[in-house]
């Protein structure tokens, strides 16, 4: 096992572990949020392994640095002293059902990977110079995907307006 | 036909139309969009000024047309046509099938005459309207609206007469119809007025239907012959190739074939019948008197109703190829003339008398068209515009002076009070009755002469005598009107007898100008015969002028005997009519009561307009209303569409929602999430397999 593979499995383990912790067994919602951060940072590590450095940076900057902090801010604003997780999950059958569903999904994937669906296009070992770096990705963003960027800007603007209106105590 | 005309581009033409249109739009948009009104004096100045400017521009163009600006005299060059192409209005197709219609104005002799009449008489009526609307006691506040409509009408009428192609002409045609509708129902607060407006519009639609069919038929046959065109120039050039074609008549019309030109001509004539209130579509015009009197003068006497005549003359080349259509036109005109004159004798409303008189005179014009005497039709159109506008406005002056009394039975003896009005009315009456030397004398005389000599027309003798009878009837009802209104003792209600006087100057001076025109207007078309008698070298100048557009008939071989016979006949009829009126209404009023039992039934029939309205009501209106109400509205709309389709589908959806779908709507976000997931899985499964 190469160092790269080792790192991947380490990050993958961390990500899955903390994801399960988040929905499963932490007792406090802040801990859940921190678990989510660990997942995000692990994923960022995997992105770096996959030569997507800009995505990794933005993953941390946006997810860990802004989104989860926003969660924490709201949690603290609401002052959820008692752990904030509310009544225990209802409908254990649902858990089982979805658990079965998940297993089936993964099983399918495993079968698919064994059957070679994913090896249609083998991994390219020699990547172009500067693959995944900000410059190349930036050029792609502002040439081929300029419209998408504009649209995402519009979505963000709409969400800002929506959030402001929702958060206002009284609409005047 | 004269030689090919010389086409001259002239960008000035568009402003003839645009100046009044702009004024109308300016105040109209302000009114409609911003609910603001300009001050009334500003509106008055703007609208009168714009029409006057339009008149000035028309005169200028006229001067250019006849070459007054130091150019080569008109005799030495082919006749000129000014043309102003704004842009390509409609452009479709490529190659052989390409067809385009320009938004273009054309100013030839015919347009020039119409244009000058419309803007000139229109300007006088505008000025008159200022006084009339000011004296109007109805507190409507609609002065701005009124002048907006009036200007819009002028613009639409100018589009009609200046149009270079059928489509644009149709635009103007519909535009004047719209303005007519708006102005008839101007005092829409009164239900009857609004109803009259609708009636005018609907009856006109019948005619417009014919017009549209005519346009399509013409275009279709021309396109079939490989010459798709709508401009008059192109139609005239290419019509010869299709003129001889025939159309198969459908079986229920007895089969057989009808000439294409005839059928097209009849379709167009149907439009003219509607617009010019000929039999059988005349019923709207008497009701149109519900509008303000200046409107009656401008639209329903002087200009719009003559659009049918104008159109027929404009398409004279088409009618030349369709003698069958000309027969129909002539007979329609003749019958209408005598019929309407008959009806006019029994009317008591001063404006309705004039309305029927208008119908009758329009009948004369169509009679002239039917004889192929197009220039004479236009000549009568012009003189009629002068004296009928004069008469209407005089009647309006009377109405204003008597505080909106329109029933002649309650007038009388106004001669002493309304001196000026009386004299201008006398001028108008003499002109319409064809008093020798007055304008009507020449034009009517020319028409009857043409009919007399129209040997190719079946029954032209009968038509001639109908014309003579109409002249007699005209003299009768016009003098009846004059006597009932101005002579005898006053029959006004006591309360209104007080300060009776001529209306204000702004109303009177247009009347005086028109009186002069009514008296002297005949000069422009002075017939050759009379010209020779009084030593005028080049008489019938209007005819010569129009010769560039329409065919002038061969000069009739007139000698003094024939003329004496013709003139004598008309004069005798007129004098008979005058005498009858004098006897019945001045010298022996008592005779009327005695005649009452004798003439009871015919008189009542005439007074009720031969029950034409009732007939239409029973034959067309009521069955249609009943059918619409019972079958279409209650049965199909309310029952089938509303009840079954609309409400039924709504009920079905509601039932489905209430009993089935609502269980999906649990209000629990996670249930929705689960459904979404299931849907996604299903979609994925479908995509994978």
């Amino acid at each position, binding site marked *: 096992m190469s160092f790269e593979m080792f790192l991947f499995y380490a990050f993958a383990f961390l990500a899955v572990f903390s994801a399960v912790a988040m929905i499963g067994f932490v007792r*406090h919602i*802040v*801990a859940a949020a*921190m678990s989510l*951060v660990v997942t995000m940072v692990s994923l960022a590590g995997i992105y770096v392994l996959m030569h997507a*450095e*800009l995505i990794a*940076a933005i993953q*941390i*900057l946006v997810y*860990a*640095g*802004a989104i989860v*902090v*926003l969660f*924490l*801010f709201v949690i*603290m*604003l609401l*002052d959820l002293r008692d752990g904030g997780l509310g009544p225990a999950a209802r409908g254990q059958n649902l858990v089982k059902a979805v658990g079965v569903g998940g297993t089936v999904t993964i099983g399918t994937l495993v079968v698919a990977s064994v059957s070679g669906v994913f090896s249609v296009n083998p991994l390219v070992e020699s990547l172009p110079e500067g693959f995944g*770096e*900000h410059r190349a990705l930036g050029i792609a963003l502002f040439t081929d995907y300029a419209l998408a960027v504009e649209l995402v800007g519009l979505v963000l603007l709409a969400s800002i307006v929506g959030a402001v209106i929702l958060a206002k105590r009284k609409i005047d | 036909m004269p030689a090919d005309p010389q086409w001259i581009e002239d960008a000035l033409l568009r402003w003839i139309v645009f100046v009044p249109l702009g004024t109308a739009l300016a105040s109209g948009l302000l009114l409609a969009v911003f609910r603001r009104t300009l001050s009334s004096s500003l509106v008055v100045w703007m609208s009168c000024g714009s029409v006057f400017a339009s008149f000035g521009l028309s005169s200028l163009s006229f001067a250019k047309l006849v070459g007054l600006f130091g150019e080569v005299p008109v005799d030495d060059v082919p006749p000129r046509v000014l043309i102003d192409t704004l842009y390509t209005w409609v452009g479709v197709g490529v190659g052989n099938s390409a067809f385009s219609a320009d938004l273009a104005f054309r100013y030839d002799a015919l347009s020039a005459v119409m244009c000058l009449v419309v803007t000139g008489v229109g300007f006088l009526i505008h000025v008159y309207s200022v006084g009339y609307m000011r004296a109007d006691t109805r507190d409507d506040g609609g002065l701005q609206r009124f002048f907006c409509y009036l200007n819009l009408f002028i613009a639409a009428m100018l589009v009609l007469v200046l149009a270079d192609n059928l489509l644009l002409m149709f635009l103007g045609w519909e535009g004047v119809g719209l303005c007519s509708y708006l102005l008839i129902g101007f005092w829409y607060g009164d239900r009857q007025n609004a109803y009259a407006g609708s009636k005018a519009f609907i009856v006109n639609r019948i005619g417009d239907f014919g017009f549209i069919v005519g346009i399509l038929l013409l275009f279709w046959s021309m396109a079939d012959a490989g010459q798709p065109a709508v401009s008059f120039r192109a139609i005239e050039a290419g019509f010869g190739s299709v003129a001889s074609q025939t159309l198969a008549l459908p079986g229920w019309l007895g089969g057989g074939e009808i000439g294409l030109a005839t059928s097209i001509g009849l379709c167009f004539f149907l439009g003219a019948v509607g617009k010019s209130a000929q039999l059988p579509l005349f019923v709207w015009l008497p009701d149109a008197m519900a509008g303000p009197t200046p409107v009656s003068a401008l639209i329903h006497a002087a200009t719009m109703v003559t659009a049918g005549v104008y159109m027929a003359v404009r398409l004279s080349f088409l009618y030349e190829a369709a003698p069958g259509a000309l027969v129909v036109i002539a007979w329609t005109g003749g019958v209408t003339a005598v019929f309407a004159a008959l009806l006019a004798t029994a009317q008591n409303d001063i404006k309705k008398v004039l309305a029927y008189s208008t119908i009758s005179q329009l009948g004369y014009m169509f009679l002239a068209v039917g004889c192929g005497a197009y220039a004479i039709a236009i000549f009568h159109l012009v003189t009629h515009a002068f004296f009928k506008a004069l008469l209407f406005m005089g009647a309006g002056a009377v109405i204003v002076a008597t505080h909106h009394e329109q029933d002649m039975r309650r007038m009388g003896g106004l001669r002493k009070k309304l001196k000026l009005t009386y004299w201008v009315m006398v001028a108008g009456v003499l002109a319409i009755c064809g008093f020798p030397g007055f304008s009507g004398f020449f034009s009517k005389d020319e028409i009857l002469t043409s009919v007399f000599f129209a040997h190719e027309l079946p029954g032209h003798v009968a038509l001639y005598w109908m014309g003579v009878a109409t002249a007699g009837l005209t003299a009768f009802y016009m003098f009846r009107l004059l006597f009932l209104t101005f002579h005898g003792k006053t029959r006004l209600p006591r309360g209104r007898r007080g300060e009776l006087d001529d209306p204000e100057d702004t109303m009177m001076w247009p009347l005086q100008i028109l009186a002069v025109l009514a008296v002297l207007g005949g000069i422009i078309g002075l017939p050759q015969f009379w010209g020779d008698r009084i030593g005028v070298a080049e008489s019938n100048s209007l005819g010569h002028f129009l010769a560039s557009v329409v065919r002038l008939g061969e000069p009739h071989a007139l000698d003094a005997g024939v003329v004496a016979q013709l003139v004598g006949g008309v004069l005798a009829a007129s004098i008979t009519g005058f005498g009858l009126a004098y006897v019945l209404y001045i010298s022996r009023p008592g005779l009327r009561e005695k005649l009452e039992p004798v003439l009871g039934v015919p008189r009542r029939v005439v007074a009720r307009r031969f029950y034409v309205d009732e007939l239409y009501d029973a034959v067309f209106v009521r069955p249609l209303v009943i059918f619409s109400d019972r079958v279409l509205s209650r049965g199909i709309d309310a029952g089938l569409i509303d009840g079954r389709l609309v409400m039924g589908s709504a009920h079905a959806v509601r039932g489905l929602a209430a009993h089935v779908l609502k269980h999906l709507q649990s209000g629990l976000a996670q249930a929705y999430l689960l459904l979404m997931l299931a849907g996604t899985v299903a979609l994925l499964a479908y995509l994978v397999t």
Partner: protein
Amino acid sequence: MILVVAKTLFILIVVTLLFAPLITWVERKQSAIMQDRIGANRADLAGMTFLGLLHPAADVIKLLSKEDLVPAGANRFLHALAPILSAVPALIAFAVIPYGATYRFGDTTFTLVAADIDWGVLYLLVIGSLATYGSVLAGWASRSNWSMLGAIRATAQMISYEVTMGLSIVGIFMVFGSLKLTDMAVAQDTTFRVFGFLDLFASLPAGAGWLNAIRLPNWGIFLQPLAFLLFLTCIMAENKRPPFDLPEADSELVAGYFTEYSGMRFGLFYMAEFIEVVVIAGAVAALFLGGWAVPYLSQETITAGVASLFGEGFANLVCMLIHVGCFFSKVVFLVWLQMLIRWSFPRFRYDQLMDLCWKVILPLSLLNIFLTAAGMLLAQQIAPGAAAS
């Protein structure tokens, strides 16, 4: 590998062991001077105060020897984690800041930066965003109202200023065309003609050629003066130092989010703050003040000049020393500047703080981006290849 470790260690030692304690001393002395008192003169060793230099040492001893209290009901794990989460970002942030150029000694070449990554500026922002967690968790885990209020304030303040901080330096990326800090430093090692922009409009008239001789270092502060002001404000607010110290406002919240900390955990927060002061100074120096660059003396000039006398290897060494010295003197200046600001301005009110961020800095940053873009576009249109000003 060894080089990397050496460079890292060098930075860590210089920053943590040299600068941070020194700054506490400087701060005390400077505040004392500014407040017209003596200050930092009590700790003595056999009567000798060494200008108060013994105070940092005394502080360290005190912190190490104090009892480490954890409030009742606090989340012990997070309580212990928070100071570490606070200090680590501050420590690792310096990794991308170059404190020297690239030098060649015989066959080995090395660059004086711990990690020369391609997206260095982004790295700084990433680290800045992660630094939030220390304050947030500290406030949360302490189970104290003061801490909680401080943490809430810290969260909102840091998220807000992160956004504007990122936007305020976009102009710098645009001008230098890179996110890499070493590239930027090299680019700043040159000069530009102050009146060069005149070329865009017309050629200089004869006799005005002396204008071309007026040159300025190609530093961010000269190219992007507005960005400099905005960035300095934002990054200081991000560090929660006065006058932006709302989260720890001692007159309102005792000590804000670290009220419930004592001993070495408190010391970590304290140290993190001072390290951040140095990091800020380093980042601002690298972005705006030319990093290691000596004004008007480019690396080639120095190397060539010294090499002509003493040989190339020695020249590189001298050059390296000069550069490192230059960089750290800039850092010291900026640290001093931050001190000056800290003791000169009164604390903001919270609404003023937010207003400043969203209503002043954000629009100005956007304006700066727009103006920079317009200027660069103009320069490209008129004189392709000319440097933007």
